[in-house]
């Protein structure tokens, strides 16, 4: 792709915008359309675009497979962990009202945190799936 300056420049311009939009969808999700799943897919698409234009090996240097594995696990742990915190604070599992003094703030905090967990896991999963398919027929650097 080195001989395609239009694609390289356009994607360089687009990638930050895609990431920013993903973060908007992520954190605006409890007020408007959106949420962790959609945001995760959009965020991952930025990296997938990067890998398509600048080669997958470069992308693997930016986000190595181990980082994705940590992302996959920590997103789920964050989600389940918020539930456990609610439980320890005296509520039911996944009861966000007890997370803050004001139940409304607690609900906001809880949903934001678990949606962030969803986003991290979905983005990691999308990138991992892309790596696995794109890496077929090559020797993986980091298994």
């Amino acid at each position, binding site marked *: 792709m080195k001989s395609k300056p239009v694609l390289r420049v356009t994607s360089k311009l687009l990638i930050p915008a895609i990431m920013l939009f993903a973060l908007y969808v992520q954190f605006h999700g409890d007020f408007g359309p959106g949420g962790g799943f959609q945001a995760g897919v959009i965020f991952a698409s930025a990296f997938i675009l990067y890998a398509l234009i600048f080669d997958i090996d470069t992308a693997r240097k930016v986000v190595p497979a181990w980082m994705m*594995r*940590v992302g*996959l*696990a*920590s997103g*789920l*742990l964050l989600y*389940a*962990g918020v*539930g*456990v915190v*609610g*439980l320890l604070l005296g*509520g*039911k*599992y*996944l*009861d*966000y*009202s007890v997370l803050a003094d004001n139940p409304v703030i607690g609900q906001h905090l809880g949903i934001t945190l678990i949606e962030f967990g969803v986003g991290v896991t979905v983005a990691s999963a999308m990138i991992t799936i892309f790596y696995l398919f794109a890496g077929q027929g090559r020797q993986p650097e980091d*298994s």
Partner: protein
Amino acid sequence: MISGHLPALQVVLPLMAAPLCLLLRHSTATWGLALATTWGSLAIAITLLLQVLSTGPVSYEMGGWAAPWGIEYRVDMVGAFVLVIVAALGSLVMPFARLSVAREVAADRVYLFYTMYLLCLTGLLGMAITGDVFNLFVFLEISSLSSYVLIGFGGDRRALTAAFRYLVMGTIGATFYIIGVGMMYMMTGTLNMADLATLLPAVAGTRTIQAALAFLTVGLSLKLALFPLHLWLPNAYTHAPSAVTAFLAGTATKVAVYALIRIYFTIFGGVDVFETFFIREVLMGLALVAMFAASAVAVFQTNIKRMLAYSSIAQIGYMVLGIGFATVTGLTGGIVHLFNHALMKGVLFMAMGCVFWKLGSVHIRDLAGLGRRMPVTMAAFLVGGLSLIGVPLTVGFISKWMLIQAALEKGWWPIAVLVLISSLLAVIYIWRVVEVAYFRPVAAEPGAESASKIAEAPLSMLLPMWVLAGACLYFGIDATRTLEVAAAAAMLLGTTP
């Protein structure tokens, strides 16, 4: 404080341990974590069963949202019994799994194996504990997706094809289930099982609900491998790693049977689905065909794991037959067979796991003389095999006794005769193995060890197998406890006595 949250912890414990396994990556460490988690789950399941026995059903509001709107976790006698079955199998397979998995799964993937194993356990426990039909779908998918991966871990490339075929069939099954749920939601506006039970009788005559019932039945029948929908099962069980087969054979289809029971007797509890919608004719007809066709196919198998897989399809026939009676005795027979079959198939597949560990094959010709070389393993196989046939003093006898009683109560003696005849088919296929293992000389291979030398599988594999084999005998001799629970469960489901 913790005791009030046990229904949530039952699912959350394995759910949180799974990503930790992914982070740990060290084979032995992940195994240790998975071992601790599964035994913790078993402790929770037993505590819940005792709670239900002493104080009645336990209800838990997820996220503090009250029942018809929020997701309710509801543990009653049936659910608690299935939870104990799943958790017990899950925790007994764990000590067995360490060496078996180390031999059958590539070393750099062992941590992924335990991650998937815990997720599968999460899904199966979740299906048994939830009181919400959509939540059941989510757990169905968690357990299904992880079991496709677990089957794909098999050393053989055919494991991948088997997993893919299961994925296609399983996805169709889950889709049918969710279509059925959607139709029920359309007519009643609720997803809570107890709420559905009160709202459904009013709309039960509509075609939408009839279609929903058909979709639910077909979808779950795919997951539980009822006769014409069983095509995914033989390959999946044959090519999966031994530990996975032992775990899934004892749990996955059982939980699907449980879901079917829930649909018919809880959700459609106010509607006589068996009389009005021809469900009985369909279920009992297919169950009887399964008992004969699958057993007959099992007789001709040369791979013992495949033979046992076909036998599983036949045994599922017995469970579905019990459901089809829709009487307390019949349902007790079906529910107790859930437990009994989990025990015996656990033993049989673990025995095959030990054989595979030692010989690298479960082909019948390689089993020649194995009764002398691996006496402990083959003795356990014998116990499991006798249970499968239904010999008195084993668990299989109890289930079949209840089913025959149910048939006689209704005056349907031909069914009782058919149950007995189909047991004879089990005698044939178990006898083939016994004959080869005990009455044939060890195949003389050049450079093989001396024929009489005992070469057993390691203790960590024998011990869990014999715990299950012991349970096969114990609950065959003193079945009061299992029958009490199963009968209480059947009564609770509100069947006509």
